[in-house]
């Protein structure tokens, strides 16, 4: 337990230090959502209609952007070798790393979304619904991304390949995330239906992600 909390604490500390990159995702997210009203034009109802999709798309791309920091840096400097000789299961170690990664790159997106909702002419209720769906859905993006990060860990600058590998797997999360947000806003289907599926996707990825990532890392021992 000490080992895992040490790993979590160190990753959180690294993320906020110089060169930690905790801000990359959130800055990209802010940029993307800020320029969107300029691209869509001054049609406020249309902007509000597109709002959930824009925020979700921004969160998805921002998550992908930050993923190559999840394991690659530890691999480059040899930290991963030592994690393998620690007396903790590799599955739990990578899960702790993914949790730290979500806390530093995923959670800020959830917090920033309500502020950026103002730029997209979103009602407070709609903003709240999007924030809730992001809170439920972004862990899935990180834990699915963990698999891709483990697969591409040995490739230097494997960032784009990582995005290509991970993106198709995250499409269901995007679909049900936006569907749940729209359900809360328009009310055409009950909010619970897509939201429950979104939560299920997150729970599944939290289980599968670390297992698959550990297998990928062990296979890559060469």
């Amino acid at each position, binding site marked *: 337990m000490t080992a895992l909390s040490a790993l979590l604490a160190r990753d959180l500390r690294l993320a906020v*230090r110089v060169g930690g990159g905790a801000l990359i995702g959130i800055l990209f997210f802010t940029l993307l959502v800020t320029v969107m009203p300029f691209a869509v034009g001054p049609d406020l109802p249309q902007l509000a209609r597109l709002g959930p999709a824009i925020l979700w798309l921004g969160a998805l791309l921002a998550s992908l952007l930050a993923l190559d920091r999840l394991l690659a840096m530890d691999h480059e*400097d040899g930290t991963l070798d030592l994690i393998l000789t620690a007396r903790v299961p590799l599955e739990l170690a990578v899960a702790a790393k993914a949790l730290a990664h979500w806390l530093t790159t995923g959670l800020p997106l959830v917090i920033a979304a309500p502020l950026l909702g103002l730029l997209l002419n979103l009602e407070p209720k709609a903003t709240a619904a999007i924030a809730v769906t992001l809170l439920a859905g972004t862990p899935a993006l990180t834990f699915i991304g963990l698999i891709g990060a483990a697969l591409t860990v040995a490739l230097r600058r494997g960032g784009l390949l990582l995005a290509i590998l991970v993106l198709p797997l995250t499409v269901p999360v995007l679909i049900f995330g936006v569907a749940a947000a729209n359900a809360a806003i328009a009310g055409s289907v009950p909010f619970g239906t897509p939201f429950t599926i979104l939560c299920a996707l997150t729970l599944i990825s939290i289980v599968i992600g670390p297992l698959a990532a550990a297998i990928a890392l062990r296979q890559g021992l060469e």
Partner: protein
Amino acid sequence: MMRLMGSDLTCVRGGRQVFSGVGFTVGAGEALLVMGPNGAGKSSLLRLVAGLLRPQQGRLKLEGGDLELTIAEQAHYLGHQDALKPSLSARENLGFWTALLGGEAAKSGHALAAVGLDDLAHLPAIYLSAGQRRRLAIARLIAVERPIWLLDEPTSVLDVAAQAMLADLIRAHVAGRGLVLVASHGPIGLNGAKQLRLGQQADQGTQPS
């Protein structure tokens, strides 16, 4: 009595056979010097023992160890990379390793002093020289007690004084019934250590020096 044995080990990397039929035995209180030219497979052998590579053939066995732990979990692996985070201070880096590898936090201050870095403990690792970084990595071996040390060319960036310090540490570990495998190009001041030559004479196996 702890004994680490490898028999008939074959390692293939990137489709090339690095070595084959390598065997060795190291007992508690013994050091094994793994020697050989570049590319002979010294690093690969140590990574194999550390569980970071899978042998194509052959087996590794540890007698008298903790049965619930793998060989890797009872070993320290000191590789070419120092596994230091540049933005963390020397003390934070070591504290993290101590916690991760299951050592006592109280010991890490003593370990820093033992490698002569206690004055630089607060300095981010990015400002440390290559030799100081290696010494910080070596501090890990002292801060966390593990019976098997796997050292891959540990002296490569160390100055003469630090090489002597490392040799003293290795001797102390061996005297404390530890097992040490060192990969090196040349002698590193360990008298009476067993030698394993990789390369052309790989199949000769162990021989006393």
